């Protein structure tokens, strides 16, 4: 017999290292004379879309099409430290460093542009990689031409920025501080399941997500993170079990340690909450790890809703379901 259940869970996640750690990221931006904007960052893209996000931020601040921006680095040989791609921190930390570096370069564009046009700098218009004299729209100069002029003066349109926020060491006794982490991400998920009471197999039907992302710089990638993180969480909830005997993992392969396949995934419906309520770039928050966390408690709650049994260990395998049902009957 198949029994339906619905469960909900809400999580909060403080991201970045926080807790007094000197967490920071450095980025550098240079407008070249050969129609390229070089963005130096050592941050590693592991598939989450870090580089796309950095390019979008630089393009937004510099008011130019993202195709002009070229990433240099991804290692600390060619770029300065961006910190690790971990702790859900790159969009917030490197995103802020890139934004600040881009703002510095924008300041230089206004400075050198105003000298070129002999005007007060607030009176310039800057858009699509071109600078216009305010009182004469016919008069304009491209970023590349300006870079050449600045080069002749022995300078260049280049700036580096370090985002280095203060973090607070928590009190040893209470674990509290003014702000343990740089910002907090919240997420609520409602998960529908069906439990087969004859086989103990759980099928996940629907996942409804509301993710407080601050600002979705790349909404497609945010949805990709929600889906990917949640499916990993569902694996943790239902199938992924490392069996260790005498210190040795006895199921070190994908036949015996099951991870979700394409046949195991539910329908997704996700809502992004964009309150822009963090100090991240454009109010963005980190979402990498938070998207994984709610799946387990939401599934366990759904199991309780379906068959009235509280499961307190993971993964919730068919054996555990059948044993729990049997105990309940006795």
């Amino acid at each position: 017999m198949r029994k339906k259940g619905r469960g909900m869970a809400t999580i909060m996640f403080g991201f970045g290292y926080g807790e007094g750690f000197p967490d920071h990221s450095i980025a550098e931006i240079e407008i070249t004379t050969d129609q390229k904007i070089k963005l130096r960052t050592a941050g590693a893209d592991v598939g989450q879309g870090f580089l796309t996000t950095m390019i979008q931020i630089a393009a937004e601040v510099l008011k130019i099409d993202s195709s002009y921006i070229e990433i240099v680095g991804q290692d600390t040989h060619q770029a300065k430290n961006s910190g690790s791609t971990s702790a859900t921190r790159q969009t917030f930390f490197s995103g802020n460093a890139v934004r600040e570096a881009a703002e510095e370069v924008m300041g230089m564009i206004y400075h050198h542009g105003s000298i070129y046009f002999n005007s007060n700098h607030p009176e310039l218009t800057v858009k699509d990689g071109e600078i216009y004299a305010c009182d004469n729209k016919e008069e304009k100069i491209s970023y590349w031409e300006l870079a050449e002029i600045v080069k002749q003066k022995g300078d260049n349109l280049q700036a580096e920025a370090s985002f280095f926020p203060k973090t607070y060491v928590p009190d040893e006794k209470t674990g509290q501080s003014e702000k343990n982490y740089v910002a907090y991400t919240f997420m609520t998920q409602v998960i529908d399941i069906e439990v087969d009471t004859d086989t103990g197999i759980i099928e996940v039907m629907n996942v409804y997500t509301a993710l407080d992302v601050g600002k979705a710089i790349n909404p497609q990638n945010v949805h990709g993170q929600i889906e990917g993180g949640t499916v990993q969480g569902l694996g943790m909830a239902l199938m992924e079990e490392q069996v260790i005997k005498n210190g040795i993992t006895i199921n070190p392969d994908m036949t015996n340690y099951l991870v979700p396949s394409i046949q195991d995934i539910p329908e997704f419906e996700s809502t992004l909450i964009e309150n822009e309520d963090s100090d991240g770039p454009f109010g963005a928050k980190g979402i990498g790890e938070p998207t994984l966390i709610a799946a387990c408690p939401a599934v366990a709650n759904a199991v309780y809703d379906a068959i009235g049994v509280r499961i307190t260990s993971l993964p919730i395998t068919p054996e555990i379901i059948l044993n729990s049902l049997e105990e309940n009957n006795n």
Partner: protein
Amino acid sequence: MKITLTVNGEKREVEVKPQTRLLDLLREDLGLTGTKEGCGKGECGACTVIMNNKLVASCLVLAVQADQSEILTIEGLNCQDELHPIQNAFINKGAVQCGFCIPGMIMSSKQLLDENINPTEAEIKRGLSGNICRCTGYVKIIDAVKEAAHKMRSRGEDDV
């Protein structure tokens, strides 16, 4: 021992050892590193290629078994400098994250769509069920196969 096979439309003659796998032949001898080695025992699908119009896990095929065969890998999908519609759909739909499973995913998608240009969602899931992805949660991969199928159907109609 010497074997002869056609890889991505090109005839190749390769000297191989008896224990050389098709995967090693492609990656090491021919330099076609688009095909990935994941688990090395036919469980994950990362090394999937098309051999004589059938999907195989190239880690489970000995190179000598591929003698006289026709092999298609991810490198052979694009036509001149144009990406294959499946590759374009994977990019458009954001179906690639770390990318390690993607060559295998795309070869399985190719085989699926060669056999059935109008698959249902259940048929897509069955067609890609041998390919494990840890990053994407598969949602956008399914979207991409649907988009590719749609594009390839309308392209086919244009040809007629």
